[in-house]
């Protein structure tokens, strides 16, 4: 694409850096923004700047917050004995929207993957160990992605964190609810047979 203006081109390049946005979509955004009032644009730009200037990581769980401690960690209604380990804020929000979990979170910021240059020191594993030492949890729930890298991270943390009195669990892997068995992939279906449940325990109490 050949732009008549250097400034337009620069803006397109910036938008095209966003995930899932190519140069064509980026150009659409720029054309759209050009039609806006100055005040609207200024509010838009301002909110972008504030992202970095006025947010920070929660000192406990690494969630994104405007205060030192995020609203979940600060809430008196949360169960402080159970900690769930997730990769990032997207996974945390997904778990929150289930309304099935009332404990605290710890955001790792990634999973161990040497190919991508991510080792234990590049995620918040050290801080997690410290929290487990200090905060006296009774259960740790691993809710990481079910890939080889996610499993390895689970395994690494398990080896580092296991101690008497601390139950370490992982979220169940199995057939999706409302799904038909014939469409489930073999690995998932196979795993759900290996880790089958006592029927008694599946009844809602």
């Amino acid at each position: 694409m050949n732009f008549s203006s250097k400034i337009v081109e620069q803006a397109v390049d910036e938008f095209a850096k966003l995930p899932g946005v190519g140069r064509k979509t980026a150009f659409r955004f720029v054309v759209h923004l050009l039609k806006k009032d100055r005040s609207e644009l200024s509010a838009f730009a301002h909110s972008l700047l504030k992202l970095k200037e006025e947010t920070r990581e929660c000192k406990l769980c690494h969630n994104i917050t405007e205060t030192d401690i995020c609203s979940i960690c600060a809430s008196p209604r949360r169960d402080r004995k159970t900690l769930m380990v997730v990769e990032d804020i997207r996974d945390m929000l997904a778990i929150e929207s289930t309304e099935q979990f009332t404990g605290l979170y710890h955001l790792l910021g990634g999973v161990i993957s040497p190919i991508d240059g991510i080792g234990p020191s590049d995620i918040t594993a050290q801080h997690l160990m410290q929290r487990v030492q200090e905060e006296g949890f009774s259960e740790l729930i691993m809710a990481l992605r079910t890939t080889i890298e996610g499993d390895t991270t689970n395994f690494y943390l398990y080896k580092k964190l296991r101690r008497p009195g601390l139950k370490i669990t992982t979220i169940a892997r199995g057939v999706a609810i409302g799904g038909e068995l014939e469409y489930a992939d073999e690995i998932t279906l196979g795993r759900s047979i290996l880790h089958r449940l006592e029927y008694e325990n599946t009844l809602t109490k």
Partner: protein
Amino acid sequence: MHLASLSLLNFRNHNEISLQFDKRIVCFTGANGSGKTNLLDAVYYLAFCKSYFNPADHQIINHTEALMVVQGTFDDNNEELKIYCGLKRGQRKIFKKNGREYDRLSDHIGLISAVMISPTDHFLISGGSEDRRRFLDSVISMQDRSYLENLIAYNRFLLQRNSLLRSFAERNYFDEASIEVWDMQLSQVADVIHLKRKEFITSFATVFSDIYSQIGATREIPTLNYESPLEQGSAQEILTQNMQRDRMAGTTTSGIHKDDIEFQLDGFPLKKFASQGQQKTFLLSLKIAQYYWLKAANGGNPILLLDDIFEKLDNTRVERLFNLVASDNFGQVFITDTDAKRIKKAFLQTNIEPQFIPIV
């Protein structure tokens, strides 16, 4: 599964050709460069969505044309099965079954089974251990899905472990705990794969040497020797033993990714001491053993594609091979040769009348 008709448009050197097959054994005859092998490859293409000889799809289309079509009508227990493949230059290929396009090509693979035997298979003897491992893995995974899954997991673990070793070497640093988690997971799948390969080679070797003696009719003893670092100890032990070396090299120096099968004839390495005819007989027996495995996995007779079978084989060995494929153990067989008379003669002993299709 029986291929009843095949029609090609701009597939390699064939601009337009339409063939009907009414016999179980079909022979394509013709001069060099007439396109006999390309016909076998077209059948292979319908089964596996790719060429046996040429991995680059755009080279399958005739040089001067922009589009190619391969169509085949199969008879699957009296049910008609129409497979269509169309490929335009610069576009993705389209595979259809009975007029309906597949969402994924992998959904098609396995529906039609075929084995190609060609002079190019010689890479199994002359090539590196990687080629032999690929052959081994492809035969085992036909029957064992979990084997393939373990293999994929192993390769992923290995890639991660090697990246970690390389970054240790580059930064002059070592962290035992990080490497340990990869080692434990890697060795778990490695032991399973090793055991499966060992079991498989034992049973495969029996079938294989039986075929060898049927075709070769000699007292030569062919053997398949499984060579694996894991014969010396468990995967975890091998990794621990080699840790120092792995750290220096920045990669995993030992494990099932170094496995090999040594081919021997009467106890001597095939590659160095066997004649060309003996090597060819060895390869033929390997591929026919593979045919039996595929047949057992799919429960039907795969299509056998025999390319340039007289090359390097004496007439009696070819006759014995034809005797074998004429038996009820085999389904449809396609054969190419430059000389129709030679094939006719070789089939005289069997009471089967092949169909001859001259290609010009």
